[in-house]
């Protein structure tokens, strides 16, 4: 309960003061000598072999020198790096860091700072394109830089594990707009920006307003039509520029205009896709319009590895591995084998992609606990990923995929001085003792408890009764919230169902569709409801049927936020045991 209050205070301060953060007022940043030398440290440049004992010099925000035998400049502030290792700062290759969280946004799925989740309500409302002909959610001109806030509090989590840089998008809508790469420190939002725009982002979750498109089919049709319209807009505009006389002036359209770089392949398009079929659909769309695709998510990317490699499509691989939820109740249905396989597979994905020659970078994927981000990278290493490849996927490879390897991703002279200084191996239980961002030291702070390790949102196993047409259906829901996306499956009396088009919005409103088989036939049910702690309730609509209701609970485990993995694995209770 402290966290939201704190957040409110920070928000208040940001609202009242011309400068965005309280600490910025107290510092006098401009005239402080900014030359540092870390000596006697192990240096891991990533772009070249490690230097067991050397010095790295940082001046005016950039790396000035690095090597075993580097002279220490006279003006440098010297830090004895004995026993420490210096890495390039890690890059979270996709999230919504720096995008203010919604008030009342479910803490789940990462809450503030976590993945796409943080881009909830207010972000969505303020991310309205000016004078757009398209509804919110289909406005590619929206740019995340307009939304960014410097937010030390939100950055304490990622920086505490060595992340200095992130790709941030709005995380909202179908055309999610243009992302930016930001450094996770700075006195104001503009100072944080490393590069913007970086990419156009596409999510495939239907609009939540009930307007077109409100289904996955509609999403694809809307995307297709808008790309076609952009092509047409481009051609008409070109024709008009060639010879305006006698031709009606084409109307300005900022939304179509914003798609032209993507169509011209000067701007990559990040497409959110995890399962094999999601990835294949995204690749098909990219192919249809000649887009430079980047896949974000990628849990089943190995199944599409050959195609990803052939089409030179990199993957921003989510480290938000599925976890076993607390078992719901004695009569909950056993988890599908598919789900067990997913969990077993998750830590192996990176190694498989590496082996298949698919380029990938790591992203936090909306994980709420930042230690799990590096912890899961470590799991990937335990499951066959070479440690140096893992580090690359967090640094230089990430920078390459995002088009900033000329300034970030390795310890090389002239690059931005984003450093993670650790005691021990960064990805193997090492501790980050010190960070440099833009050449300035950043203290490692414990993330505010609650700010990052939020409630699990809808993640977990639910026992839900669905009432429809006078009958009650006992069901078990295994849900996973990733940012604003809602994934999972339903088992029980409505049959085994994978939920589709799931999302959770501001005010904890969830919605998804599911194909269920009733006596009359196979139908699509749209579930809309609210999450309230460990209870969900709401309604479901089926064409041709009177709306039904659903209500359910998720059992809490003492001392842990619901839905977390049980420490000891509790297999399902055999049927009938009470």
């Amino acid at each position, binding site marked *: 309960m402290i966290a939201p209050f704190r957040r409110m205070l920070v928000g208040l301060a940001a609202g009242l003061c011309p400068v965005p953060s309280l600490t910025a007022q107290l510092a006098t940043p401009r005239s402080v000598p900014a030359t540092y030398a870390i000596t006697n440290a192990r240096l891991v440049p990533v772009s070249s072999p490690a230097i067991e004992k050397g010095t790295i010099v940082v001046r005016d925000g950039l790396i000035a020198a690095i090597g075993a035998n580097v002279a220490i400049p006279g003006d440098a502030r010297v830090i004895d790096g004995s026993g420490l290792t210096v890495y390039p700062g890690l890059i979270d290759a996709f999230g919504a860091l720096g995008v203010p969280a919604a008030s009342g946004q479910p803490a789940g799925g990462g809450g503030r700072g976590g993945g796409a989740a943080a881009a909830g309500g207010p972000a969505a409302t303020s991310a309205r394109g000016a004078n757009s002909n398209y509804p919110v959610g289909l406005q590619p001109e929206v740019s995340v830089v307009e939304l960014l806030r410097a937010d030390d509090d939100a950055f304490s989590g990622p920086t505490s*594990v060595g992340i200095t840089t992130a790709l941030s998008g709005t995380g909202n809508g179908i055309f999610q707009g243009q992302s930016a790469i930001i450094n996770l420190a700075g006195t104001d939002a503009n100072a944080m920006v490393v590069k913007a725009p970086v990419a156009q982002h596409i999510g495939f979750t239907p609009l939540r*307003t*009930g*307007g*077109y*498109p*409100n*289904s*996955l*089919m*509609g999403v*694809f*049709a809307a995307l*297709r*039509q808008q790309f*076609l319209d952009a092509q047409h807009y481009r051609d008409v505009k070109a*024709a008009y520029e060639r*010879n305006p006389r006698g031709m009606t002036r084409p109307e300005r359209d900022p939304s179509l205009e914003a798609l032209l770089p993507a169509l011209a392949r000067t701007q990559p398009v990040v497409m959110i896709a995890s399962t*094999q*079929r999601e990835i*294949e*659909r995204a690749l098909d769309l990219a192919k249809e319009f000649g887009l430079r695709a980047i896949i974000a998510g990628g849990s089943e990317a190995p*199944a599409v590895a050959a195609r990803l490699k052939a089409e030179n499509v990199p993957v921003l691989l989510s480290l938000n591995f599925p976890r076993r939820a607390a078992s719901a109740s004695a009569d909950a249905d056993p988890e599908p*084998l*598919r789900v*067990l*396989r997913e*969990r*077993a597979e998750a830590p192996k994905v990176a190694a498989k992609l590496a082996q298949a020659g698919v380029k990938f970078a790591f992203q936090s994927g909306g994980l709420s606990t930042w*230690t799990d981000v*590096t*912890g899961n990278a470590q799991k990937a290493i335990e499951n066959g990923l070479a440690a140096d490849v893992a580090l690359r996927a967090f640094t230089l490879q990430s920078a390459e995929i995002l088009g900033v390897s000329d300034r970030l991703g390795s310890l090389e002279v002239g690059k931005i001085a984003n450093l993670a200084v650790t005691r021990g191996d960064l990805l193997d*239980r090492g*501790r*980050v*003792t010190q960070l440099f961002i833009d050449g300035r030291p950043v203290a*490692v*702070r414990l993330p505010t408890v609650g700010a990052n390790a939020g409630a699990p949102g809808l993640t977990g196993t639910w026992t839900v009764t669905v009432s429809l047409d006078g009958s009650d259906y006992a069901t078990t829901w295994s849900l996973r919230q990733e940012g604003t996306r809602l994934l999972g499956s339903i088992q029980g009396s409505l*049959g085994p169902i*994978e939920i*589709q*088009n799931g999302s959770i919005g501001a*005010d904890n409103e969830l919605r998804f569709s599911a*194909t269920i*088989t009733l006596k009359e*036939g*196979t139908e*699509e049910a749209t579930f809309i409801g609210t999450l309230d702690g460990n209870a969900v309730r*709401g*309604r*479901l*609509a*089926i*064409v*041709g*049927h*009177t*709306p039904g209701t659903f209500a359910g609970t998720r059992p809490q485990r003492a001392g842990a936020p619901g839905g977390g993995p049980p420490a*000891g*694995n509790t297999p399902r209770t055999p049927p009938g045991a009470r």
Partner: protein
Amino acid sequence: MNRIFSLATVVTLAAGSLGAQAQPVAAGAGATLIKNATVLTVTKGTLKNADVLIQNGKIAQVGANIAAPAGATVIDATGKYLMPGIIDPHTHMMSDAINEGSLSVTSMVRIQDILNPTAVNIYRALAGGVTSINILHGSANTIGGQNATVKLKWGESVATMMFPGAPPGIKFALGENVTRKNQNQIIVVGQPTPPRRYPISRMGQEQVLQDAFTRARDYKATLDDYKARVAKGEKNLVAPRRDLELEPLVEVMEGKRLVHAHGYRSDEMLMLLNVAEEFGFKIQTLQHGLEGYKIASEIAKHGAGLSSFADSWSYKIEAYDAIPYNVAILMRRGVNTTINSDSDERVRRLNIDAAKLVRYGGLTEDEALATITINGAQQLGVADKVGSIEVGKDADLGLWNNHPLSVYAAVDKTFIEGKVFFDRQQDLVMRDQKAKERAELEKAEASASTRRGVQPVLPQEER
């Protein structure tokens, strides 16, 4: 690659699920000879003690005492029945969405975009001898989305499951589901109340059709005009804006896209036939068409097919006059008539639904079988490839342990293009494998969670 995963791989391959580059069970691409079966060709009568040779995915030979080519898999089908793979002209199987119900005309959406080739209900349908299906958009709006004709090659990619050469189609819908749509909408406080979507009456449905095809006709004129100007050699022309909503409707008017129209009441179906005639196109199938028997002559005259339930009725008002004699009445008038499931449950036993037609209306056994095989192939425009056991057609077959019109019949094997996609014996083996895999995965997970002691610790400030 630990042992558990390799086991998982084996099972995955066997099941053709997840992972999905999977080869289907058994048989392989080589020749297969099915020996000594009762062969229900559907179009050419029933052959006792006959052999069917499958080569390169096609039916190569049908007859007595066919010699097995070298290396062919030989299946002894003594006492068993071989029939064409069942075709279901109306399902919503393997769809990650069914309705784009936000608008009254959603001809731009495509079922093909959202198919899930690993859906378990595909396998359950294969176990009922089904090999091809027509996946339709739902019935939320007057003009729905584009359908997908699919072969149930479970676990293969959507691209390979799409029925090659099947003509494209589109779903229309009439009646209660369309007009009542908004009454079924859930309104959320804090969000603007959406206005009731037009139409809420059967009158409005007719106007939605009129309006859409009028617009499509104008669009076509624009396209034609552009093409003419290009042909005349005009320079510096910009092609007209492509309209994904109207393009499919132009194709409908040009006879290139088949209309599958959901309707129950005779009056609404007749209205649709009239509108279609006005715009110069044909309705390929009336879907459900439970009151089709009341306008059998008109349907026959228009040349539409009809795909009905065998005997479902009374579940809503517009289904109250449904009768199980519908199919027989229409068939006697020369209407191509089929049985569909519209259900992942019923699709598993279409053979029994077909058998009911022998009782209700006195269809012959071949006629009854035709309603779930060749007639469906004709409705979907793929009768040259599937729907009967004839030389040259795709080897999409079901091998049954009893006459498929018997309630005591169960499927032994289901073939698509000669590959076995369901095999009851294999299925029994897979059950054990799956149980074993589950146990191993659960065990591995349990031991992993006890290793959690080595989790990375929270970073602490050092001074």
